[in-house]
């Protein structure tokens, strides 16, 4: 025969535990949802917003992520507190008796018994017992006969989980709404910065030295600068140039180490690359590297592209032959390193171009037309020539020729389709240093030359060579002034302001703004 007071006490404890568990279940799903959303916000963003051309700024993403994790922890803590309170509230002797009363349908006999026999109640409540109390005691024992508290008070998770899932849904909806308010359509800068960050992450992941870490940090700083609208363009350029310098420095170090390995094979490719890389870095700090690389097929690549194009870029440069003839065992590693470095430098150059474009589009209040400072540090006449690595784009020999020769004259990335990646730039396929194969090259007619007019409508890339101002000689003969100062702007690298037309990026005429008036 069980003591009915113990039975009610057991039921009270069980009811209290169940109440605490149910309360905790209500809180745990929204808490875990918030924490999971916060932890996996980046991959979620990649498969959602990013796919539709939207991006979440890193600082906002971090804030949102931290907010979600914080909210999850707060909900979890609140759940714990509420569970404790629910336990305290439900751990009531008389309330448990009322539950048992309802369960056994005994017309408040158990409640009456509990109020008069509550061990926690003051003595005065026991004084209210009457001579009939023994009947009530026996009645309680009879009512509790065969009662299994565990069986009668089961943990039913359905309702709390349902409620919990509703709360979790609310959290998820709140997260979606918050993200909707925070995401922005990706700009070219955003995309470029994202690529730079990806490269930085890759470098940091495979970091073997402090130089790599420093490089990764520089790249991240450049990416942050690129996205920061408050930062002046000069500062942005400085950051990007820092990163480029660091990248070149890293490349040089790698080449030196590789050359050390390759010395046994009698090759001096690394030295060549080193020299070229230096000269390129000094002469064309921002946008010259792509240009030099693009000229690799014409012989300029011997000076510039020593460490850049490599065999991974289609083997158009001279170095490919050198490397092919070098140490076979180190070739792959070197190529890989070179390739990633090239990619990095290309991205940095593109970032630089973005800054220039933005600066050209939104010149400062003091800017004047032709002010080099406000044009993002565009190449200046003479500088590139002094640099040694920058070929003159207006040299007659550089012009692409119609027909088959044109194909040869334009360095192609088609030799290695793997490298012919479209990185999603708003500059179309014009990856610096990765000029696509020209399949239908045309050129402007020389003065006096006759031929079919060119059709620029479908042209994807237009390269210019500025002719000298024609003068009239004897008998009206036109005399070309070959000594006239030539435009030195690297036509490939020239930053293009985004056009206002609605044409898709591939259809836009990637023509330097200063030459657009020449196209009619």
């Amino acid at each position, binding site marked *: 025969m069980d003591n009915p007071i113990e039975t009610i006490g057991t039921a009270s404890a069980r009811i209290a535990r169940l109440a605490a568990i149910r309360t905790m279940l209500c809180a745990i799903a929204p808490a875990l949802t918030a924490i999971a959303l916060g932890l996996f916000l980046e991959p979620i963003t990649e498969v959602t917003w990013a796919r539709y051309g939207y991006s979440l700024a890193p600082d906002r993403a971090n804030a949102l992520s931290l907010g979600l994790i914080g909210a999850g922890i707060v909900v979890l803590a609140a759940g714990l507190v509420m569970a404790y309170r629910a336990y305290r509230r439900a751990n009531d002797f008389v309330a448990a008796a009322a539950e048992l009363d309802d369960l056994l349908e005994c017309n408040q006999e158990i409640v009456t018994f509990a109020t008069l026999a509550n061990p926690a109640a003051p003595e005065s409540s026991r004084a209210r017992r009457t001579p009939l109390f023994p*009947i009530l005691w026996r009645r309680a024992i009879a009512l509790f006969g065969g009662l299994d508290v565990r069986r009668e008070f089961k943990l039913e998770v359905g309702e709390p989980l349902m409620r919990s899932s509703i709360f979790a849904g609310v959290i998820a909806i709140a997260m979606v709404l918050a993200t909707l308010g925070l995401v922005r359509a990706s700009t070219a800068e955003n995309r470029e910065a994202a690529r730079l960050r990806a490269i930085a992450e890759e470098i940091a992941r495979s970091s073997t030295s402090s130089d790599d870490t420093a490089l990764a940090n520089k790249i991240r700083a450049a990416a942050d600068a690129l996205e920061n609208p408050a930062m002046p363009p000069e500062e942005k350029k400085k950051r990007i140039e820092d990163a480029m310098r660091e990248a070149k420095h890293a490349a040089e170090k790698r080449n030196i180490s590789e050359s050390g390995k390759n010395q046994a094979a009698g090759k001096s490719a690394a030295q060549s690359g080193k020299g070229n890389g230096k000269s390129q870095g000094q002469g064309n700090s921002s946008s010259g590297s792509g240009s030099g690389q693009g000229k690799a097929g014409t012989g300029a690549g011997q000076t510039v592209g020593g460490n850049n194009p490599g065999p991974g870029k289609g083997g158009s440069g001279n170095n490919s032959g050198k490397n092919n003839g070098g140490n076979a065992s180190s070739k792959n590693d070197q190529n890989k390193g070179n390739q990633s470095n090239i990619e990095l430098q290309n991205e940095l150059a593109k970032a630089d171009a973005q800054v220039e474009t933005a600066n050209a589009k939104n010149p400062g209040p003091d800017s004047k037309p032709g002010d080099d400072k406000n044009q993002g540090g565009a190449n200046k006449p003479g500088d590139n020539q002094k640099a040694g690595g920058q070929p003159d784009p207006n040299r007659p020999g550089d012009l692409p020729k119609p027909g088959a020769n044109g194909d040869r004259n334009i360095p192609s990335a088609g030799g290695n389709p793997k490298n012919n990646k479209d990185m999603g730039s708003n500059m179309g396929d014009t990856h610096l240093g990765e000029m696509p194969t020209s399949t239908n090259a045309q050129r402007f007619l020389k003065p006096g030359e006759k031929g079919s007019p060119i059709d620029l409508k479908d042209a994807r890339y237009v390269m210019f060579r500025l002719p000298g101002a024609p003068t009239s000689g004897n008998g009206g003969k036109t005399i070309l002034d070959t000594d006239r100062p030539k435009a030195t702007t690297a036509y490939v690298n020239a930053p293009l302001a985004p056009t206002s037309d609605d044409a898709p990026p591939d259809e836009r005429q990637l023509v330097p703004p200063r030459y657009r008036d020449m196209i009619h």
Partner: protein
Amino acid sequence: MGAAPQQVSPDQRVADFRKIFSRAESEVARVIVGHREVVRKLLTALFCGGHILIEGVPGLGKTLMVKAASETLGLSFKRIQFTPDLMPSDIIGTQVLTESDGHREFQFKEGPIFAHMVLGDEINRATPKTQSAVLEAMEEHQVTVFGTTYLLDPPYIVLATQNPIELEGTYPLPEAQMDRFIFKVVMGSPKPDELREILSRTTGTAQNKIQPLFEPARAPQSIENLKALVREVMVAEPLERYIISVIGGCTPGGPGAIPEVSQYLRFGPSPRGAQALILCAKVNALLAGRVSVGYDDIDDAIVPCLRHRLLLNFQAEAESVSSESILEQVIKRLKKPRT
């Protein structure tokens, strides 16, 4: 049966109560056809120590029912027909000059109020002065004549009747006096089957004799023991709170008063109403074989205990809203506390 509590076990006392109550109902039913609820309330009021107001048209057997109950329980019974010229002394008694052994003295001559069961027929026809004389006896269980107080022997119960028709020349009981009745029960007309049975019983030769449950000498004590048992029934605190909430819910402007109460009532029940509820609920619990009160016991008692304690306002009268309908709304809407 009905022995002293110290001699009998609690279980036996409870069993005796149920048995006596049941037998009393059966004995009264020998002469009263139908009206089982009225009979039950009459007996309940007796065991609660209260008085009962019976409202019904003449000829429904009110007097017969009270007489039958008194015979069954072995209690003395007196009937007072209230009329406008009835004086208090006609009820409570008066000093009469008597002469014995050569000298005269005033001797108190008890009025009809000195009985265990008093039927005040058509109490609303008496003047307020006379009514108040009765009502003092009801509440105090004593009468005072010329400065001398006379106690009324327990058990003491007054059963007053009211005729709801022919109200001209009547003196409706004031609210304060209505409050002294533990119940107000309404006797309706008999149903056809019951009427046929009444005719059969009263117009034939057969006579239904009532078997008293107690000897007249022991009856008062036995009934007092049963009344003591009723008061021993236990009530949990949540149920007491429920009763309090019922009283508050029926009081205009009170805590938890429903809109109908504020709309149709001038006054709500007094604390006597709560006492009546608890006592009636205790009897109900005992009749159900329990020694503790349940919510159902209270709900069953609400209408008979409180219907005459609600004072309807003019709007309620105009809209024919009854106090019973308001009480039913209160029962429906009030939450029953669990702890």
